[in-house]
């Protein structure tokens, strides 16, 4: 459970799972769900991007995923789009 993703600077999955615990129930489901179901299938760049996203504020993360705010960073915009697509199909 806590092994780091091989050959990268990605933190151990146990650490990531804890950092997906947030102040809002909505984010608990979104982030933990995405981590468990899709994270390991992502390309290394996107894994690193997801790790970086976890440093953003709860409210902003929620606004991104709920479509209230569009991320100005193109790569984050792409990853949020992927999260929205996966969440709606599962």
């Amino acid at each position, binding site marked *: *459970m806590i092994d780091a993703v091989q050959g990268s600077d990605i933190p*151990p999955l*146990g650490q990531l799972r804890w950092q997906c615990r947030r102040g809002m*129930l*909505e984010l608990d489901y979104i982030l933990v769900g995405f981590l468990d179901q899709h994270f390991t299938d992502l390309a290394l760049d996107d894994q690193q991007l997801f790790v970086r996203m976890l440093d953003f504020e*709860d*409210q902003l993360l929620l606004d991104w995923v709920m479509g209230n705010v569009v991320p100005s960073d193109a790569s984050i915009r792409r990853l949020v789009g992927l999260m*929205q697509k996966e969440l*709606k199909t599962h």
Partner: protein
Amino acid sequence: MTLARRRFDALIIGAGGAGLNAALQLANANLRVAVVSKVFPTRSHTVAAQGGVNAALANVFEDNWHWHMFDTVKGSDYLGDQDAIEFMCREAIPTVYELEHNGVPFSRLDNGRIYQRAFGGQSQNFGGAQAARTCAAADRTGHAILHTLYQQNIRARTHFFDEYFGVDLIRDEEGAILGALTLEIETGEPLLIEAKTTLLATGGCGQVFRTTSNAHINTGDGMAMALRAGVPLMDMEFFQFHPTGISGRGMLITEGVRGEGGYLINKDGERFMERYAPNAKDLASRDVVARAIVTEVKEGRGCGPNADHVLLKVDHLGEDIIAKRLPGIRESSKIFAGVDPAVEPIPVFPTAHYVMGGIPTDRLGHVVIPSSDGSEEVVPGLYAAGECACVSVHGANRLGGNSLLDILVFGRAAGQQIITHLKDNPDYRPMSDEIIDKAVARLSRWEQEGEGISVRELRDEFRKVMEDHAGVFRTDEIMSEGVEKVKAVREKLKDVRLGDQSKVFNTARIEALELENLVDIGMSIVLSALERKESRGAHSRPDYTERDDVNWLKHSVYFQEGDRLDYKPVQTKPLTVDTFPPKPRVY
């Protein structure tokens, strides 16, 4: 066992609004203050509070703290302590101004004053016209307050222990609290924090129920730590449920959906609220709608493969209306319920939202052990504030806008009281190795290896028991069965084993400690609810439908040792004004 140790003047466990507001008072007084938080502080549940904070600033309509007090006493169904309520409503005003001066970006009126919105339950002139008392920072007041307080604490050099879990309080032979044993989640190593004073500010415990709007972190850790230290919990039967949470998930679907014409149906497509509330129908009060939904499910008219929810229908409103008047609901339903409400109905079930009960405190934040004669014994060195505490200002039912107010006023008061206490008590109390062993034993227990029940399996079983036996539908028979089932879960806890014994970021170990906390609290809820034989505020019983002021105008006090219940009279005498005597609660 050699333990790493740190020493501080004050230890605060929990980094939401209550903990951070207390910490700020202490750090500004140049005291050494440690804040322990199991998640990064700005990920505390305060961030989810949208509505705002009540204070009679009179920026929109005429207002004063005495009207606010009347509304709060009435809203509490007369179970709130009127001295504490007067204190809170008076202190609301300087507390909000202090937040403003600390940089909280409150929304503004055209004249530059703080914007105030109207909420249900607010009145002018003791039950007269609608008041507008809720100070808001757009629809993200909790977020704004939490981030401001965190930044101010960083400036004031508060010492943060981020991602540390509070295991247990350290209590000496005389009952004084000397600090706490904590666990660094990253390394799995224990850390003993000695403190002259300890404040519990760990928030609510909504995770005791299967369906809750609370974040996963809300596992009532501070309440359970208090129980294990011999401190009782008060009024735990009073839990607010919102009728329409997303089934199996718990996120709130706002009442505005029904206000805009959405309605509930059962598996037969029947608009069942017409049977329960012929006039108000789907707009009946929260408890009536919640109980109706549970009745439909219990009587076999639930929807879905498990027949465990009902449906909230809005598609008849049309896509344009949904987009215009209910923004967010469509996206939220798609993501969390997997349905597009413009096409199909949303599966809903009542969701546990807020606990009015908690660790008994006086209005200065001291944790107290109440007696049936009304006296209170202060627990030396221990304070509590916020949702984990019970002052009691919410009594049987909390008003909107009073939860942020509670955490801020009583976090601030506790901080100020600790400063006063430390002036007269500058020394650490001695701590023997023996008194640390009990707390350490709680950690060692999870090193047992071998076959056993998994944490997840027992947690799921427990939360379902709580939902079925201590949720919105409370009869003697259902709750008596619930007490036995919670006892059985408590026994099974001994057979739970961790599959993974590693230390670094072993979240399974933390979840096991959280499960122990949840089960301890669960018993306090179901037992207190079983014994209160009346309906009052959020505690609603079909077998005792009326409020009974003759026999039940009193607080329930649950002690873990022997699963014992005691009662304490309600403080009906305010500090300076006349008592508000109990009356029927009509709006």
